[in-house]
């Protein structure tokens, strides 16, 4: 387990062409880490996330991804992810191969990945056209009842990146609030990178809290406000106004590229990114 700057951790652990999952279901989305991937111009990534959200809209629009595994690709409560749409509809800025699931299917795939099983099972995908467009969705017969059960191959990202509230000095990680499939994505990964709001002496975690022990964590960077404009329960709220404003920014290719240049590429780190947004407000 290593503590380091986000810059050096992304540089060391993310390689072009890798499968990378930045998880966090609406809550604790690792925006700072995604922006650092964008700054370092990583390419040909296979991005994995249940809900691509704004962070993958940005990575896809900036040309970092060649494929995407996902289960719901909208701007929650607002509408489209325009950069994702442009990639799928018009191959801009490059073609994007998609592997599409339902939430239940993808949750089962992460769970299998964490347990190091070859596939996940669910009563699902009945009557939907999804298996026609995603041949990875198949079925098995239950050996006890002969019932047909849908299967999805395990998801084992080369790298999973999470944002969490806190790490202690040993590198144990505490996550609380809406936890999505973060624990499963973390334990399914080859390499686990975590950004945290703060590093503390003791986590003081309740007995059944979600704690990822230090020996499953590869690297930790302390990045305050690292989930913004998503949120960290107990630290800051989701900036819903930003999610609303993103609709206009992302709708137009030029305006999107200007935004990425001005706020992400021209900022050295997440603190500068936040300052640049404050200046523009």
């Amino acid at each position: 387990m290593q503590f380091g700057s986000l810059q050096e951790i992304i540089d060391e652990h993310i390689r072009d062409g890798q499968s990378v999952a930045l998880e966090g279901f609406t809550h604790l989305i690792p925006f700072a880490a995604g922006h650092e991937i964008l700054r370092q111009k990583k390419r040909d990534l296979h991005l994995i996330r249940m809900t691509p959200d704004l962070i993958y809209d940005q990575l896809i629009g900036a040309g970092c991804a060649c494929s995407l595994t996902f289960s719901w690709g909208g701007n929650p409560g607002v509408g489209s992810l325009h950069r994702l749409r442009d990639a799928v509809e018009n191959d801009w800025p490059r073609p994007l191969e998609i592997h599409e699931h339902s939430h239940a299917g993808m949750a089962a795939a992460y769970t299998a990945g964490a347990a190091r099983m070859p596939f996940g099972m669910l009563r699902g995908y009945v009557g939907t056209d999804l298996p026609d467009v995603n041949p990875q969705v198949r079925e098995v017969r239950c050996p006890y009842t002969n019932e047909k059960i849908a299967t999805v191959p395990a998801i084992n990202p080369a790298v999973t990146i999470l944002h969490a509230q806190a790490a202690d000095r040993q590198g144990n990680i505490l996550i609380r609030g809406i936890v999505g499939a973060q624990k499963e994505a973390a334990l399914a990964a080859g390499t686990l990178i975590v950004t945290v709001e703060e590093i503390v002496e003791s986590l003081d975690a309740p007995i059944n809290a979600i704690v990822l022990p230090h020996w499953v964590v590869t690297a930790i960077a302390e990045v305050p406000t690292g989930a913004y404009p998503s949120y960290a329960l107990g630290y800051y709220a989701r900036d819903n106004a930003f999610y609303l404003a993103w609709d206009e920014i992302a709708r137009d290719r030029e305006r999107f590229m200007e935004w990425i240049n001005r706020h992400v590429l021209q900022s050295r780190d997440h603190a500068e990114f936040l300052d640049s947004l404050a200046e523009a407000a």
Partner: protein
Amino acid sequence: MNRSSLNRYTPDEMMTIAAARLIWPGCVCFVGIGVPSAAANLARLTHAPDMVLIYESGGIGTQPSVLPLSIGDGELAETATAVVSLPEIFSYWLQAGRIDLGFLGAAQIDRFGNLNTTVIGDYAKPKTRLPGAGGAPEIVLHAKQIFVVLKQSPRSFVAKLDFCTSAGFLNGHGERARRAITGAGPQVVITDLGVLKPAPDSQELTLVARYENVSVDKICQATGWPLGIADNIDVVATPPADELRVLRDLHKRTEIAHTGDVLRSRKTPRPLISQVNA
């Protein structure tokens, strides 16, 4: 829209209110964002305070004071009886049959209540790429029943879906039961013009009620197939002032909350930005 006038209302308000009225006290309801979430919360704030609201982000028994913009806003966790992981909500709660009602929207619906939220046009080269499946394909299988709410037009009520994301009655005439799907499927479709229910034998959606000042003719014209019509068409009661007031207060609170400053009462390590202009 004139928000101050409580004797006038919009078709969207009528749709939300008509949907909310169908939710019963004690109902365990799995809701999507948008009109389903608004209708479910309106029911909770009016006639069904003990209903159990479940969002797929893992909040069980959540009681938000404003409508969440996203499925995972912080308030959904902070006001919930329990917050569980996403694999758990879909397996132990939904798949296990613990949900009474799944409440969904869609971009397209066909005569058998099948839903499309994936693409308009061809999947490989779509005209419009929509967000996709989310929780819906399994919600429609495992919730004991489904309500669907969407605006009615020839673009949304189509003879043939561009893509079937989530199963309704498939080809009707008992196919859903033959495929051993446990939930009963879409029992009510609430639109901005009226209410449709599946016919007993064919499961084809049939008009059973209209709103005041909306003609049956208009509803037929807004449907992309020859719409079956029940022998007796009910007229849904106009919303009384107090029902409208609760809905508008909810939307007003929500609007203020979503454009508000994220700094409010938070432990915040550095100043944040409430409005961003490129």
